[in-house]
């Protein structure tokens, strides 16, 4: 192939200061991964460049880093593929984590969030432990297998939009891990888990931006599992949070008139009086700008929509 420019984020905790970028040029061969090149840089040019790595086969999850602005595993990212889009390769540490040194971050907060979701199976204490395996259908296995393949690389957490805006957010990895158990037919602690998950920083704080699903190197699809958790919470009548009320209000509005009553929904979803009042100025301004229709009209033929709603959702 050719000489490729690498721009690597450097931060030395012993000298302190802000991070900076350092440029390295690497002779790349076809089939070289980003990790291969990092190893060449470390081995041949500068032994101080610091990063984590181990298996180099996309299973240990050590080498996730931001490569050209998106989080990926260095070991399974082909340089040639990047060069189709980028002229040079920028390497930065995971975002949403404190940096220890160069491309190495402190994962403490990540694990604390995992630990917070009761990250182990809790079988029904009333059932005797069977002599052999607990039975599980192939479909029940399929339900949780996808999340069970999470390699804890943190790519999803690094690119999570909600977490970037609010560090209380549990973030996709911990939430997907919750589904690992909540979705498991052998687990009996749904209520306990979901009670925590519907609180502030939980499932309803996800913006559904699908960054996590997009960057996941193992196609774990965290966003989809967060939505499944929402479904579980609603099925367990956990309906107090704004997010849950938003869904219920939305359903009711569409099921009735065929389309969303945007004016009414926020007032229904938000119960807190202070929060309601804080929405008033924007509401008034919208009204004055002609952006808040006074009357919500059902679509023509709304009866058919109501019929389907009744059939599939009940009254």
């Amino acid at each position, binding site marked *: 192939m050719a000489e490729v420019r690498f721009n690597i984020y450097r931060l030395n905790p012993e000298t302190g200061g802000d991070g900076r970028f350092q440029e390295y040029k690497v002779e790349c061969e076809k089939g070289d991964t980003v990790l291969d090149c990092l190893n060449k840089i470390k081995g041949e040019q500068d032994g101080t460049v610091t990063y984590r790595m181990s298996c180099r086969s996309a299973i240990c999850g050590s080498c996730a880093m931001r490569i050209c602005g998106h989080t990926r595993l260095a070991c399974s990212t082909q340089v040639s593929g990047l060069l189709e889009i980028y002229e040079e390769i920028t390497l930065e540490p995971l975002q949403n984590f404190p940096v220890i040194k160069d491309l190495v971050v402190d994962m403490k907060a990540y694990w604390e969030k995992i630990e917070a979701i009761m990250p182990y199976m809790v079988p029904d204490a009333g059932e005797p432990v069977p002599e052999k395996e607990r039975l599980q259908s192939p479909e029940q296995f399929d339900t949780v297998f996808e999340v069970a393949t999470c*390699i804890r690389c943190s790519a999803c957490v690094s690119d999570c939009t909600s977490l970037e805006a609010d560090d209380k957010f549990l973030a996709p990895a911990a939430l997907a891990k919750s589904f690992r158990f909540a979705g498991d037919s052998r687990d009996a602690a749904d209520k306990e888990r979901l009670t925590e998950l519907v609180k502030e920083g939980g499932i309803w704080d996800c913006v559904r931006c699908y960054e996590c699903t997009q960057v996941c190197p193992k196609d774990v699809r965290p966003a989809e599992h967060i939505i499944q958790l929402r479904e579980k919470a609603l099925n367990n009548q956990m309906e107090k949070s704004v997010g849950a009320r938003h869904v219920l209000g939305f359903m009711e509005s569409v099921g009735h008139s065929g389309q969303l009553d945007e004016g009414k929904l926020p007032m229904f979803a938000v119960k807190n009086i202070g929060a309601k009042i804080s929405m008033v100025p924007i509401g008034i301004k919208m009204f004055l700008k002609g952006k808040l229709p006074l009357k919500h009209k059902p679509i023509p033929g709304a009866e058919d929509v109501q019929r389907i709603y009744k059939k599939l959702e009940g009254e």
Partner: protein
Amino acid sequence: MAMEEEVFSHDLLIVGAGLAGMRAAIAAGEGLDVAIVSKLHPVRSHSGAAQGGIAASLGNSDEEDSWETHMFDTVKGSDYLGDQDAIEMMVKDAPGVIYELEHMGCVFTRMDDGRVAQRRFGGHSKPRACFAADWTGHTILQVLYEQIMKRRVRVYEEWYMVSLIVRDNVCRGIVAYDIDQGKLCVIRAKAVLFATGGYGRAFKITSNAHANSGDGIIATYRAGIPLEDMEFVQFHPTGLWRQGILVSEGARGEGAYILNNDGERFMTNYAPEMMELAPRDLTSRAIQTEINEGRGIGGQDYVYIDLRHLGKERILERLPQIHDLAYDFTGVDCFEEPIPIQPTAHYSMGGIPCTMEGQVTCDPGNTPIKGFFAAGECSCVSVHGANRLGTNSLLEAVVFGRRAGTAASEYAKGEVLPELPDDANQPAREEIEWVLNNQGSESVMAIKDDLQTSMMENCGIFRTEEQLKSQLATISKLRERFSKVKIDDKGRRFNTDLIGALELSRLLEFSDIIVTGAVARQECRGSHYRTDHPKRDDENWLKHTLAYRTDDGPRLEYKPVTITTYQPEERKY
């Protein structure tokens, strides 16, 4: 660099957080102060890379399976070097440990009736591999770490174990280096249990992680304890070409073919009955023979594994990771094309000699080192003898992790913390200071590369006395070069340059042991194939090697194999 000293103490200290280490910690139970030291975060351990399955004669897919059959297959697979009392113990424990994992929440691929599905694997006469698609090691590793979190076991993660403290045949603790903080610490313990993994990183083409540098094995050796059967290194038949990344035997368990340049399923010439499901030693030799005789694809050093006839649905259900690895690392879409593969250094049969309870021993008479236990790939019980069967490694890790964890905690309960010698951390301190301050011109990467390339050439699937002796000389030169090694990073925090040099020193040392054992063993047995001595020689070599550290290199002794039920026979597949 000045190194501060801190001393910690625990009842039971486990080094390594793969399947064996974590299973041991769980077995230790309550009422005991247990801690784990690991150079990686536990979920980064290389157990997670195991794909195809874990063996147990549950009889779910074939009611006729039994522990006796499993035992015989394992003994035969080991080329009769496995200790039969230990093998019997392992296969009898197997179903129980699978159910335990299942009860902890481990996911397993299921049969329609809801029981754990089982598939065929090389060298096993019955379908007894339990699996979660091709993610078996990963899913077990996760579930064990879940239990570690649940039990709030203290984990010193990203701490590098530098040396083992043994005096008067009593183990007293370890010296470990906190990678993040750059601090050298002594951890004192009533019992120490090593579960530090294998030594496959000595080879250029390997399925092993960079981290698999035999740290525990060498710490043991440097503490004056011999290592057993180190010459036995398993080459897995199907590693991704040039990468060595594992293509699970589960692929062949599901029916994949291996093809040469003529499109021929050449295994018919080597193992007409079991074909692609012959054991690994035999299959790797078959592939290497095809390559050596010019029948590799386009005359090159690889053949094909072909999954196409399995169909997209089956591949996605049973082998999804193989599909992704082949695509990401070689650009091959295995629905449409065969995958280029070559044998890859995979598993270390040899290691720290120990009993079925994980008690480490130090001579042919099995004299124990009190308070020192080992389990998993770093240990040599020996259940794999000269050649391990696929799916028996995860089984070994869990069975013996559990047994050793129980035995070590029982031992610790009856002991007080042993006295530490005054100079407990001296060797470790000196080694680290030497690496940091050495003024040389040699690079870690260059020496490592030369070591791995030469080991692959001279101590690989086929070996001769001439090659092995020249390799001993090469290693000696490389060690000389290592004495002039220089690293760039002199810093204290997260110095991976330093760790890389420490690891290389261990690679060089155990490579020497592998080759020394291989020169001496003038026969073919399991993974050890001497073209200049092309027969198995039970009369002279049905025995375990023990390698002791001396100033003049490894000194070899031998100890007998335990044979209980099955007398050695010719192996045919």
